[in-house]
């Protein structure tokens, strides 16, 4: 069994979905009611790999909504309770989707192993970050040449370079792609210096300096709504890969020859008979999903029951290659630019 822990993109959205699913007691409730709502196992599904193997899985909605981010204790409980439910259901490997892995990491939930009468077994959970990082790298390698960017001459900026996904992307770009220059941007300077030392390459810079120089920008830090970007200063063509959560880059970067690609999204080769990705607002909800979710499926297909992606900066090139090969083998592919009807190319 694989599991996926997700949440709605907003409170309003959550209420609408709850009503659709018949959870009237919370659909009609205010945010306080949602703060006291238990996690819900919303759907069970069977998935058949391209190799013919069948696996079963469940989607658990944590009943977390982004409006709860400022309520630290609430957010923590939502994630831990959803994890407890996954473990109680006997799920072998569960991916923490959306904000849940961010909350787990940033609120240091590792110290909360005991949830009621359940002792959480970390080996049953994965952040899915290894697969997400691999998918973002593949999206970059495949789509840049298609809009006329030669990787060998390209300058790539990674925004949020010191994060778990960001550092893995930098590691891959330096070692596997032969790009011309890597610009690394992050809030904290100390980890940036360490990363530069580890990679023995890359240039540490600021967002302002990086954007006009970059042919490709990988965003793995979330964008504040207040940021305004002068698209005139960007290179043309320019590929923007939106690898953060929530995905809101396309609101910021609109203009000629600026291509925004939703990062870390994969497509399965076959329709999956589920409703859960409709809830996640995927363009093709029967096939598309977050790469982190797909990681739980891949690990289940491979009978690799371990917390494959866990902690920060543990993503090695070997792990990315392993998950990437398994991803292709079982029928996943990274979504590309042609999947994006809202891309603006003139």
């Amino acid at each position, binding site marked *: 069994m694989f599991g996926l822990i997700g949440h709605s993109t907003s409170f309003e959205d959550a209420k609408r979905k709850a009503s659709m699913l018949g959870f009237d007691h919370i659909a009609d409730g205010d945010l306080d009611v949602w703060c*006291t709502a238990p996690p819900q196992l919303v759907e069970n599904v069977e998935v058949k790999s391209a190799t013919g193997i069948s696996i079963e899985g469940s989607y658990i909605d944590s009943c977390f909504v982004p409006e709860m981010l400022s309520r630290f204790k609430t957010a923590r409980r939502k994630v831990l309770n959803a994890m407890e439910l996954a473990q109680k259901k006997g799920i072998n490997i569960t991916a923490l989707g959306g904000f849940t892995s961010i909350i787990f990491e940033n609120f240091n939930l590792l110290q909360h192993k005991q949830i009621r009468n359940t002792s959480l077994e970390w080996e049953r959970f994965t952040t899915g970050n290894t697969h997400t990082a691999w998918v973002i790298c593949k999206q970059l390698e495949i789509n840049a040449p298609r809009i006329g960017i030669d990787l060998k001459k390209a300058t790539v900026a990674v925004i949020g370079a010191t994060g778990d996904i960001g550092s893995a992307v930098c590691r891959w770009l330096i070692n596997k792609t032969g790009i011309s220059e890597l610009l690394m941007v992050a809030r904290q300077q100390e980890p940036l210096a360490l990363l530069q030392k580890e990679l023995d390459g890359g240039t540490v810079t600021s967002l302002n300096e990086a954007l006009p120089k970059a042919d490709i920008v990988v965003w793995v830090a979330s964008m504040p709504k207040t940021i305004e970007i002068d698209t005139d200063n960007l290179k043309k063509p320019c590929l923007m890969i939106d690898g953060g959560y929530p995905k809101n880059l396309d609101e910021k970067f609109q203009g000629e020859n600026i291509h925004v690609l939703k990062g870390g999204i994969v497509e399965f080769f076959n329709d999956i008979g589920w409703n859960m990705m409709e809830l996640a607002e995927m363009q093709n909800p029967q096939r598309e999903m977050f790469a982190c979710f797909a990681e739980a499926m891949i690990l289940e297909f491979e009978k690799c029951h371990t917390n494959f992606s866990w902690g920060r900066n543990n993503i090695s090139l070997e792990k990315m290659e392993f998950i990437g090969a398994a991803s292709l083998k079982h029928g996943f592919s990274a979504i590309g630019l042609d999947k994006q009807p809202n891309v603006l190319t003139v």
Partner: protein
Amino acid sequence: MHNELKITDMQTLESNKKTTEESSNPISLNLPDFTTDTYKDAYSRINAIVIEGEQEAHDNYISIATLIPNELEELTKLARMEMKHKKGFTACGRNLGVVADMEFAKKFFSKLHGNFQVALERGNLTTCLLIQAILIEAFAISAYNVYIRVADPFAKKITEGVVKDEYLHLNYGQEWLKENLSTCKEELMVANKVNLPLIKKMLDEVADDASVLAMDREELMEEFMIAYQDTLMEIGLDNREIARMAMAAIV
């Protein structure tokens, strides 16, 4: 504005100062001061509720045995366990030098107690089990689970032992209702509609005292809903049925 754009402007989770400060303090470090008058005053009511709750649980299981005589042995065992819990919690109060306000506690349970007695007289076993084995037990477990995190070391140990037992009780009512679901579903729904709102009111009534003990109302309610939902799920109700039943808690 865009010229001044800096990566430090990004208000992500990590840069949320309040959040980071809070998260660096594990909850166990935020224990209340058990020696203050305010704490003891609140404790006198909460402790009484717990003691009275265990006493009523004892009496209720003995009463339920009159409706299912072939379960007498099992139910007597459960009842005895509740008395053991009562003694444990009485010791918790004594340890802090608190006299439990039993009058308050009796009044606190009176409505639920009354509903149980009526159901018992009428021989409505399903209603009796819903009140005792589901609602009261889920209420107790949720309160104990929250309390364990903020209790004084002596009470923490006692409560941890009690919680282990309480999960057994919940299972007991669960099993009977599961086996008899086809015949008892209707009564279960009706009884729930009447009694779940009482639990909600009881929670609201103790919220202020509980918060003095560092027990958060929101957390108590969530723990209750988790235990309640788990039991209904085990009994064999589906998501929609549970949602319909839980609805009674928010009206």
